[in-house]
Structures are given as C-alpha cells and as structure tokens.
C-alpha cells in the first residue's frame, strides 16, 4: 500500500532510501550519518543497507563535506549532504556561495551541480546555542541556489525526491521540531512542482504566508481566528528561492491582507522580500501593509526564552488583528 501515516523524519528517511535504490549515483554524506543514522536518525539504517561506499561518514569539517561533494558531482555523482544543525553550515558557506552556487554559470552550463544540502533548522526543541537558527535568507539571496522547506510528511518525502532529482543545488531546510509530527505519505502519488506554493487552508479575510515549521502555527492561528468569525487563508510557500509569487498574489488579491510568518529574524528576512514584491504586485488591492512576524534582531536566545522569541499563536493573531484594523 502506497499511503502510510508516518512522521516527517521517517518520510525523509524513506525518501533517501528510495533515492539510493533508484539511482546508483546518489550518495549520502555527513557527520554521523552512518552507524548512528544522524543525530536525528534521518539516515537511520541506510549505511547498513547501502554500504559505506554510498552512505559516508565524513571527517568533522563542513567545508570539506560540501567541497568534496562538489567534486563528486563533477564526477557524475549526486551527493546528498547532511549538515548536523543550522548553526554549523557556516564553515561550508564559502564553498556553497562561491563554488556550489556559481559552478554551473562559471562553466556556461557545461557542468551541473546536483547537490542537496540538508539542514535541520529552526528552534523550539530547547537546544543550546547554534542549534535553533533559521538562516534561509542567507541562501535565498545567493543566485545559483534553490531553497526549499517542507512543512509536513508528504512534502518531506516528495520535495526531497525532487530536490535530489534536480540538476541544481538545493538547500533543503528541514523543520526539526516537526520531525516527529505524523502525516500521510502517498509514495505513488504524482507530486506537484517543487517550487509551487500550496493553499493549505482557504479563507477570505486575510492571507497568512509561511513555510516549514511555521505552517502549523499559522494553521492553528487560522483555526483560532475562525472561532472569532474570521476567515484566514494559509499559504504554505514550500519554496524560498524561487518564491511562488503568483499563487501568493492570487490569494492576496482576494483577501487584500497579508501577514508573513517565519522564525528567522524579521530584519532582512524572507518576509521583507515577500512584503516588497507583493506590495508591488498588489498595490491597489492591499487594504493594509504586509505585516511580518518573525524572530527579533538578536542571537537566537537560550532555551528558556525561546517561547518568547519564536512567533507563536498569540503573536500571529496579534498581527492578524493589526492587519485587520487597517
């Protein structure tokens, strides 16, 4: 049976397994991805079944991991790299920005860079410093990269399949605090496009746009607002580069109000790009400025403050109220 209910973590694991089975060029690389199965067990059992040649424990050096993945891609492989936590991608940032993102263009299209960089990201799990960050803006600004983030098990399975099949480098942000949330996965369904947004809930009064971990919060906010007689539409963007502005525009033209929600700091966050572009596209439709709910301009705080720091139901509803007050 192709439809199963499983947590996001398991869906990602199944997706990697499928990729390893289907394409002998697919490799998994990273710290502790072998016997341990990764600190979140996303690669659990894969080394046992596919061998150390295809599921590769690497030295503790992120630049080395991405740099050698680039070399493997040049040789015809399709490496799927795991970065252990969001805050540890920065040693690899140079290889990602100056090499991975630019190689295809530098070669005038003669070589391809089918490398996926998987990054468990975001907060809400009570972790220590560097383990709860949302750095997606720092990748979306960089031409040559694609940036996506699933919000549920089905998207986890399919978007990872599509990212691995893509001939472009994809930064794949996994909402770590949703790893244990269950959802249905149909491994035989024909998936939608990787970079297309999805209206997760229909509504007429205001649009909430989010991706990854914040989709759930927005759905909860919409449900809570309904009790107060407000009809909120929720758009799961799924992709941060490119952003599916067409779907979002269509929604905002109907609802005339938009609130963007993400965990990353608001300043220079994806909400800024969305606000700027939707305002340009929907200037005569908007009844209120696009409002943004996100992290503050501070390092991600210690665990005992993260509930205050993270956009939650109340802060989203507060923004909804403010937008509707215009």
């Amino acid at each position, binding site marked *: 049976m192709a439809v199963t209910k499983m947590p996001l973590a398991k869906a990602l694991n199944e997706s990697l397994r499928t990729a390893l089975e289907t394409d002998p060029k697919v490799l998994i690389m990273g710290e502790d991805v072998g016997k341990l199965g990764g600190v979140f067990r996303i690669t659990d059992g894969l080394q046992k079944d596919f061998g150390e040649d295809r599921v590769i424990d690497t030295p503790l050096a992120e630049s080395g991991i991405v740099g050698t993945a680039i070399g493997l891609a040049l040789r015809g492989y399709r490496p799927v790299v795991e970065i252990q936590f969001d805050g540890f991608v920065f040693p690899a940032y140079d290889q990602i920005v100056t090499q991975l993102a630019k190689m295809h263009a530098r070669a005038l299209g003669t070589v391809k860079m089918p490398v996926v960089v998987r990054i468990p990201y975001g907060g809400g799990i009570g972790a*220590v410093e560097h383990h709860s960050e949302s750095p997606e803006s720092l990748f979306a600004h960089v031409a040559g990269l694609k940036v996506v983030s699933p919000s549920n098990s089905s998207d986890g399975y399919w978007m990872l399949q599509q990212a691995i099949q893509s001939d472009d480098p994809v930064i794949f942000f996994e909402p770590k605090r949703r790893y244990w949330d269950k959802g249905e996965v149909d491994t035989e369904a024909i998936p939608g496009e990787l970079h297309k947004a999805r209206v997760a809930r229909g509504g007429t009064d205001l649009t909430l746009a989010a991706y990854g971990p914040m989709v759930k919060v927005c759905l909860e906010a919409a449900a809570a607002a309904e009790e107060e007689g407000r009809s909120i539409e929720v758009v799961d963007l799924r992709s941060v580069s490119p952003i599916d502005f067409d779907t979002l525009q269509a929604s905002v033209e109907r609802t005339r109000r938009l609130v963007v929600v993400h965990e990353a700091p608001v300043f220079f966050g994806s909400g800024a790009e969305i606000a700027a572009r939707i305002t340009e596209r929907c200037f005569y439709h908007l009844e209120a400025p696009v409002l943004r709910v996100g992290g503050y301009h501070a390092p991600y705080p210690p665990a005992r403050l993260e509930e205050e720091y993270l956009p939650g139901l109340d802060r989203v509803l507060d923004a909804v109220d403010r937008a509707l007050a215009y």
Partner: protein
Amino acid sequence: MTVEGTAARKPRRSVKRTSASATKGRAGAQAPATEPQLVQLLTPEGERVTHPEYAIDLGPEELRGLYRDMVLTRRFDAEATALQRQGELGLWASLLGQEAAQIGSGRALRDDDYVFPTYREHGVAWCRGVDPANLLGMFRGVNHGGWDPNSNNFHLYTIVIGSQTLHATGYAMGVAKDGADSAVIAYFGDGASSQGDVAEAFTFSAVYNAPVVFFCQNNQWAISEPTERQTRVPLYQRAQGYGFPGVRVDGNDVLACLAVTRWALERARRGEGPTLVEAFTYRMGAHTTSDDPTRYRLDDERAAWEAKDPILRLRALLEKEGHADAAFFEELEAESETLGKRVREAVRTMPDPDDMAMFDHTYADGHALVDEERAQFAAYQASFADSEGN
C-alpha cells in the same frame, strides 16, 4: 608504555582499492619511523615510572590535591548528568574518563595564563576556580555561557567546533605584543582536528610564534565517528608539518598530563612558540545526554578503558605510598556530597531569565532596531496584562 587505543577496531574505509603503505613513500617522504610514544609517568596499576624527557616531582600534598580535583570534578559531572535526567538541564556533555587530561593540564596553568575551552572542559574550569554552577547555565538554557571570561581567565565554552583555537592564537599574539610572559591554552577534540580553523590556528601560531599550547583530548570518538574518520596517523604528528613540536601523552595519567603541559607552557613563555599536546584518552560516557553510543560502539572497548581509569590509578599510588589515609578519603567523600548538594540547589534555584533579557547585549553601543523591537515587545506583553486586567 605504548597504549594501542584503537588497534582492535575494524578499519573503516569506504574506498576499496588496495590500501598499501600509506605513509611510507620514497625520498623526501620522511615517514615517521617509530610507533607513537605515549608519555606516561603513572601506569594504570599506579606505578610511578620515569620518562627520559618529562620529569615531575610532586609531594604528597600536591598528589592529594590532584586526586581531590579529579574526584570532585567527576562528582560534579555525575551530578550534572543526574540533573539532566531529572529534567533540570536540557543537555549535558560529560567529561567522564577525561579527568586526568583536564586536571593535569589545568593545574599546569598559572593564574595569568588564559584558557580557551570547548564545551566539555568542566575539569579545567574547576582548576580555574570557575563556580561549577556557572557552567550549568547554558545546559539549563538560561544563557549561552554567561560568565565573565576575564574573571578567571577562562573563556566561554565554544560550541562551533574548532573556532576557539583561532581565538586562542589571536589572544596569544596579543600576549606577545604586550611583552607578557603568560601563555594561552586551547582545548579541542580529535574530531575538531579536521576543521580548517584548527589548521589555520596552527599556521598563524607558527608564523607569529605565538605563546599557545594546543591541547587535543583525543577521546577516540567524535560523537559516533572513531578517530580513523579524522586521520590516518596519530594526531600529535600534525604539528610537525607546521613547524612546531607535537607530543602524545597518556591522557589518563594526571602526572604525565601535568608534566607535558607544564613543559609546553614553559616553551611558550620562553618565546619558543606553539606546541601540540595530544592527550590520548577515552570518552567513557555518551557524547552528550542526547547520544546513544550503543548504536556505534562495543561495550568491551569501554571495559578495556575502565582498567586505565585516571582516578583509580592515582588512588593506588596514594595508598601504596601511604600518602593518604582513610580519613582523607572519607573527608573527600563528604566534600563530594556537599558539592553535589550545592550544585543541585544552585541549579534548582537558578532563576529563569527575564523575557526582556533577549534584547540585551546584542550590541555594546546600542542599535536602533533593537530599541524599536524591545519597545514593541514590551507593548505587546503589556497588552496581555491589560486584557488580563480587564
């Protein structure tokens, strides 16, 4: 005197080609001729042995002091692990098994020396006089470190692997510029040895002849990865290619760790530049309380290392030589209990930070956006108080 730590482990090689003489090249290759020599001054059985290069002469009081440090450090560590299990801490990174490496090196330091730790140097912190309770703040989630590094010349714990080796090098460059004869010590792990930052620290310290000691605790594991995933020759040899000496010391021998670190610090003080010390030891516990080592390593490996326990061997010496009597051990047991209790209480009464604290200290000189966000957040919080008031 040679310890073959990982010899029994199966080599992990994803490349299937014939792996022939790895380091034995031809002319110019200069492959090391001998097996690594482990500096040891105290055997696992508690016998004092001598080493031609590194001597140490400690009286009974000093030996008891080292023993006390190790026992209390282990006790503190056990207490923290327990506190994590009880939900008082979010995470704990245990130093179990590494007490000798940390106390030996930590006690080699002078007050004016400066320490750059990883996240596991609780024993070194102890030697520096950092209140153990202070170390728990970040693991409880009330701060990201939060002690004043300058009050004990003990820098904040650094989580991004390898970064602190460059900070230590820069700090040491500053010490040299000041004309001071202090030294700096940077701790890092076997896994960290692969990070580019550590190599750059080696380069900078060598080029500027900085007074820094690189103290690598090779505890055989980087989470689930054995040292063979990081290097195929002993780590202490890394130094040589950068132009400074490297030494491998028995990391479970507190006397050897003290002697070798002292020697390395003295070199630094004399302006002879950096040294790499590899303390060959073992992580007896899990990587952190979140880790499950049964997935990747065998129990008998741990058992073999238990026989080399750093505390037991010093106790054996103390008893054999009559340096400590039953009263000493009893008193220490009582002191351990008190420490445990104090730590438990300190943690349980540790106040949560104020919500507004997240807007503090992002900048020293202020930032308009932070002011704006702070004000907005305060107004938002106040709006609940208002509605609650209604």
